[in-house]
């Protein structure tokens, strides 16, 4: 049941990325390019996702526990440190260069292009390096 729940979550996410156009780096870069022909699509995507999640999370938490697990596993860290800020800044530079954040990059695999494969390979290697930096 957990595996099925995971698949449904991934499918909804992948459908959302495809229908919103976030599988197109041009849309993402168009949003980030405030000095160019600005594309507001990403703002609607983020807005729709955050509002839906804000409401839905509170309904889910009100039930006391998740359906297939004993408890909710929420991040507990509260500190605003250099690692968080530096990591987010590096991620932002990579996002701005490519127009891909991890979700759309992975969901675009079906586009089968060498640059995307290079991006995914380097991203997975980057995750390894970040873990080594412990």
């Amino acid at each position, binding site marked *: 049941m957990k595996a099925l729940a995971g698949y449904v979550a991934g499918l*909804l996410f992948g459908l959302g990325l495809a229908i919103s156009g976030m599988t197109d780096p041009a849309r993402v870069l168009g949003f980030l390019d405030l000095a160019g022909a600005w594309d507001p699509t990403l703002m609607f995507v983020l807005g729709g996702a*955050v509002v839906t999640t804000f409401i839905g999370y509170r309904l889910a938490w009100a039930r006391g526990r998740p359906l297939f697990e004993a408890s909710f596993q929420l991040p507990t860290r509260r*500190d605003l440190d250099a690692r968080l800020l530096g*990591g*987010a800044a590096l991620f932002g530079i990579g996002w701005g260069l490519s127009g891909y954040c991890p979700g759309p990059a992975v969901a675009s695999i079906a586009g089968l292009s060498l640059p995307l494969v290079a991006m995914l390979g380097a991203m997975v290697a980057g995750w390894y390096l970040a873990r080594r930096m412990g």
Partner: protein
Amino acid sequence: MDWMASLQGLVGGVLIGLSAVWLMATMGRIAGISGILSSLIWARPKGDSAWRLTFLLGLISGPLLVMALGGGLGNVAAGAPGAVIGEPAGGVALMLLAGLLVGVGTGLGSGCTSGHGVCGLARLSPRSLLATLTFLIAAIVTVYMVRHVIGGGA
């Protein structure tokens, strides 16, 4: 303004939100793509990897389903009619650099657009708000440099 593109963005965003809510309601987990996938690949927690693998399969099959339906639901900015997946913005060298930055950055910063930007903001997490503002500003400055400073306003 292209209202149809914006409407599709809103509908897609709601679907992404429903995915996050579903994962919280069933598994009690944050729908953070970088966390789910880097754990699946580099940590493989026992008894906690199957749902991450099926999540990955679902994530890939979403766009495939839209393509199988003829692509009419896709929202590619300047692609052929029926396009669902856009072209990469650069060649292999640029993508290697970008991928490394995205991997290291989301690893160190404990999240990406989904974990911090969607789930974290919905939880009203100060860490996620700071991370989201930081990567948004870094990305906007990067695009400005690439397109309007180095690229000469192209």
